């Protein structure tokens, strides 16, 4: 579980996050949704501690991370897996070396066990026989999957994904979404995913936080979202004719 209260973030004079409260639940897929520029990435990076917040409290289960020193923060970071918006694979390393990377630093396994674990994670994201390839040789969807494999290799308690299916075709996007959902339930992780994809909301969203211009405007589950009366959320969700039709039919 991750809980945040009053999280506020400025860039110079610009208030990018305004007193955001939210609760992200364990063993569930928590989505942060909002349109481009609303502050999703900034919120996610604040949660991970990559961006310092100007006010507010962030708690990982019973550990508060705001104001934590480097050493203690490092302990929590070992329990986090992060999938960045572009994958952020290390260009100079092959696929298998990318997945091995966290193991080389933080596991006590021997070489053989590390290799086994890395290959297991690659198989888990449906990548077989790609270990020798380099990131430049992969398609967008494959990169995302390698990034997911690298993020889960240390069996994290918390998984963060920044738009894991942006730039992918709808079919591949659903495959990635379902993969993340399965992994979340399999390992009981607290998973937080940024997205502006409506399919993701209805496919895997168990807990949804809607961010609008740096403020949290709505929080709830998938069923409730169809009945929300928040204007900004409705506009965001149901601008497309198709989504409006779906909503009418479900109601």
């Amino acid at each position, binding site marked *: 579980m991750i809980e945040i209260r009053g999280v506020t973030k400025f860039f110079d004079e610009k208030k990018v996050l305004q007193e955001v409260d939210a609760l992200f639940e364990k063993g569930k897929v928590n989505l942060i949704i909002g349109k481009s520029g609303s502050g999703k990435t900034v919120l996610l990076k604040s949660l991970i501690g*990559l961006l310092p917040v100007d006010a507010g409290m962030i708690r990982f289960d019973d550990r508060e991370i705001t104001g934590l020193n480097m050493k203690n923060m*490092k302990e929590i*970071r070992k329990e986090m897996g992060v999938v960045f918006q*572009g994958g952020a694979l*290390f*260009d100079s390393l092959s696929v298998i070396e990318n997945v091995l*990377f966290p193991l080389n*630093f933080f596991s006590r396994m021997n070489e053989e066990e590390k290799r086994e674990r890395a290959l297991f994670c690659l198989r888990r994201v449906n990548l077989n026989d790609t270990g020798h390839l380099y990131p430049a040789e992969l398609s967008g969807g494959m990169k995302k999957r390698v990034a997911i494999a690298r993020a889960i290799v240390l069996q994290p308690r918390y998984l963060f994904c920044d738009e894991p299916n942006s730039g992918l075709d709808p079919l591949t996007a659903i495959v990635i979404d379902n993969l993340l959902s399965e992994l979340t339930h399999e390992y009981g992780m607290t998973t937080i995913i940024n997205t502006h994809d409506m399919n993701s909301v209805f496919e895997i969203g168990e807990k949804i936080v809607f961010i609008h211009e740096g403020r949290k405007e709505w929080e709830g589950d998938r069923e409730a979202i169809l009945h929300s009366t928040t204007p900004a959320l409705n506009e965001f969700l149901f601008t497309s004719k198709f989504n409006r039709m779906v909503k009418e039919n479900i109601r």
Partner: protein
Amino acid sequence: MKFLDILGAYLLFMRRIFTKPEKRRVFFRELSNELEKLGLNSIILVMIISFFIGAVLTLQTAYNMSNPLLPRYLIGYLTRETLLLEFSSTIVSLILAGKIGSNIASEIGTMRITEQIEALEAMGLNSVSYLVGPKIAAALVINPVLYIFSVFIGIIGGFLAGLSAGSVNYDDYINGLHFEFNPYYVTYSIIKTLFFAVIFTSIPAFYGYNVRGGALEVGRASTRAVVDSSIAILVANLILTKILL
């Protein structure tokens, strides 16, 4: 004001480089990668340039010494002194600042804009020490070696050119090489190459690390890195010469 801000940020950056590596094994693996990259990248270039500069130095000195009263061994002597004192340390480092410096700035800059550096930080690693530490260590090992190579190749270049142009003979040149040899000059130059090695790796790394934006900014950072590390090398050369000689 602006300059002092950058200098302060650079010093803080340097402090993050010199922390204990997370895993010794990983550090040494990265170091051997960097040694290979740096060595292969620069040795041929340094050899070619040193050969030709040595050759030209000898021919020019010979040409300027048409006065029969000047002893001919001065040609070998002056070639040696120029290479030993200035060319093989300072000029070679300036060349490396161009080649290796732009490489480092664009490599680290690209890692920044593609969130690879944040990925390292998110794993709980000190990205600065992981990325830059092995590069500096490799340059500290390689640059003195390149210096020695450059001196020898330059002397050989001068010898061959002088001999084939008929401007020196074997004995004169060899006598010149031995004439008034001061071993402290080698120490002085090797100390310089160590400082220059830190400069032409850390300044480009600093600019790359602080890139914000996209590919355009990476290109800009790389240009600035080369210019500023060249200037820093020249200034350091002046200061070190004042202190050491």
